[in-house]
């Protein structure tokens, strides 16, 4: 495989991995607090629509991106209401959120189908983009990609070296202990849901503002589900999430390129690749990690007094 094929492929891997990265980081944040949110796919779709519409109306893609995150947090707050307010089942609530988010985005987005809005375009970073190989792969993208580089290390530091990070981890591991230590379990879990939802919403907005500048139905195309699987692959570690997201971005970019070369392999089979890889990755991480890195209280509700 020549460098001329490989380098653009790797660059494309980073770009198509970015929305998955935002979503995976969001889900990691939420799950660290002990809340399982399976509504990512729906949250991404609503974030994508909110970002697109805002950018179209105001002409400001930055505002669109930020509001995409807000829409994500807003939809996620419904999950908080069900799981924290009423002790509802987290799996059922998450699945309902997916269906709701996708349906809402499709319905509200109908007038915009096929239209475009101003979005983000690639900006090469001076000096860094001159580095051979690395420069072309990592530093020749739109600003949102660069933003996504900073989040994993920030999140890693947050969980390891800040008091709030310690609190989020504690309510996800052993809420009773956190409560006995004087922390508000419900408060920290709300934070986990909202911050996580915001990040997932940003991932959605990336799709409509940078990945494409167009609106179509079903824009997220299962990326939310891939993110859920990647959380497990990453063993809840934000740095590993970046590796996983780019791996999946790579497979997505690769199958697109393979289709473009006019291969004889049926395109539906190629489209299946990322999802097939999801299954393999899940099997691999379950075998390797045995679920030991999962927050111990993931998916378990707590009484409101705590």
């Amino acid at each position: 495989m020549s460098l001329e094929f490989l380098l653009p492929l790797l660059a494309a891997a980073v770009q198509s991995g970015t929305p998955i990265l935002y979503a995976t980081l969001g889900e990691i944040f939420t799950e660290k607090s002990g809340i399982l949110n399976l509504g990512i796919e729906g949250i991404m779709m609503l974030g994508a629509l909110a970002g697109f519409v805002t950018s179209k109306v105001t002409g400001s893609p930055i505002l669109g991106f930020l509001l995409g995150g807000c829409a994500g947090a807003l939809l996620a707050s419904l999950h908080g209401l069900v799981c924290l307010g009423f002790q509802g089942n987290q799996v059922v609530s998450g699945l309902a959120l997916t269906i709701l988010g996708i349906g809402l985005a499709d319905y509200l987005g109908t007038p915009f189908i096929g239209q475009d809005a101003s979005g983000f375009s690639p900006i090469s970073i001076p000096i860094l983009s001159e580095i051979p190989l690395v420069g072309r792969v990592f530093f020749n993208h739109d600003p949102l990609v660069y933003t996504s580089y900073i989040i994993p290390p920030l999140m890693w530091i947050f969980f390891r070296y800040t008091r709030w990070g310690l609190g989020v981890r504690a309510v996800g591991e052993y809420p009773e202990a956190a409560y006995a230590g004087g922390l508000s379990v419900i408060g920290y879990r709300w934070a986990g849901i909202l911050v996580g939802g915001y990040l997932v919403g940003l991932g959605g907005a990336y799709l409509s503002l940078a990945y494409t500048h167009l609106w179509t139905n079903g824009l997220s195309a299962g990326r939310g589900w891939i993110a859920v699987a990647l959380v497990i692959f990453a063993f809840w570690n934000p740095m590993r999430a970046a590796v996983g997201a780019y791996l999946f971005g790579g497979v997505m970019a690769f199958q697109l390129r393979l289709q473009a070369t006019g291969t004889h392999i049926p395109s539906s089979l190629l489209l299946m690749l990322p999802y097939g890889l999801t299954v393999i990755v899940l099997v691999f991480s379950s075998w390797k990690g045995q679920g030991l890195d999962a927050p111990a209280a993931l998916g378990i509700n707590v009484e409101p007094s705590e």
Partner: protein
Amino acid sequence: MVNGTQSFIRLENISKSFGSVHANRNISLDLYSGKIKALLGENGAGKSTLMSILAGKLQPDQGRIWLNGQPVDFSSTKAAIKAGVGMVYQHFMLVDAMTVTENIFLGQEEGFLIKPKKLEHQVKDLASKYGLDIDPSARISALSMGERQRVEILKLLQRQSQFLIFDEPTTVLTPHETTQLFEALKQMAHQGKAIVFISHKLDEVLEIADEIVVLRQGSVVETLNVSDVTSKSELAQLMVGREIMFQIEKQPVEPKQIVLRVESLSDDVLKNINLEVRQGEILGIVGVAGNGQKPLIETICGLNPPRQGKVFIFGQSWNQFFAHRPWDGALSYIPEDRQGLATCLGLDLVDNFLLTTREGFTKGPWLMKKQAEEKAQGLIETFGVQPGDVRVLARQLSGGNLQKMVLSREFYRRPRLIVAEQPTQGLDIAATEDIWNLLLKAREKAGVVLITGDLTEALALSDRVAVMYEGQIMDTFHTSDTEKIDQIGLMMAGIAP
């Protein structure tokens, strides 16, 4: 704020109910600094509930709390911690996946960033000041129960709590660790802390407390100074509300043929285990939990095949026996986890009865539910399981009644080998007595392996005792051998006499 020497807390007319259960009825209590107060009572007497209210974990239905003469509102654990109240819960409130230091500083408000090195240093200083040896960077999951308890104590000391509550702190400790804990408690009381010691063990309470408050069924029945206590049985009587026999009738039974033989059994944990049990005797296996009892039981009961060495049950090899284990006249296992391994909480008593006896009620593909129901009903009446209705769900039974139901089922199988693991853990004295008598009676027909952490139980029931430490059997001896019995504590700590 709390001031070192003269602080006191008054609990006034505290009441708390859970549904129809009155956990606390109108309880009043004073705590003074420099004193160790023991709350004595059986399981379910309301000790933990009362102290959880003081620690802000539960809210009282009625009553109030006074701190140094001022009414205070402990509406959250945070408020209680601020007022200087700290509690070491029976189930440790530690996050396994975090380090000692992270746990100690969890919930403390001091800046945004954590500096692990600096904090670890603080923990080290604090630990050496109170003689509580601990590695500040170790993960909780790697620590022994005794070490975890030290972390809990350090947590309270770090917050400079003035009122320290210990809920059944000795349950998980070796005799040696218990001595260390008592030293630390006395030391802390000496430094002006008010200590509350919750327990149902009479000896401990008499050893450590200045004042004893006896609780029964949610009410205070008596408050006395330790110097006023004349006898242990007086305390025990206050606690249970009736005379109890500490000596149970044990009829001698002639041991007959060997029912279980274990020969040089070894695996990751177990080291060259040899033992023999005959029909007509009870072999007590004692030791601190986690010293290899679990893997040993799991092999004997057919959950895990022997890795190295041999196990013979009724003279058959492990493979032969478990290839077609007969449902009756054979092996009965009474697991420690009676709500998990022994029963299905969501099923009624008939279905739970059928869990291990279904082969006796099978005709072709059909289960004979009618007969099973009649049989089960008869059994629970004989064994006095309350409520005496087989259609209730297992989860509706109290711990003691559930255990009696399990025993009735297992004895129905007419076992010749019984493996009973912590059979009376968490049960009140009356239920314990019933279970003990049932096991003694069963030994007329069967060999019994009794795994227990409770020495009183082991010595009351066993004909012979084996002491386990770190996967090996330190020694096996008859319970008539008083010299060896005095050394059990040492053997449990790994010191061979």
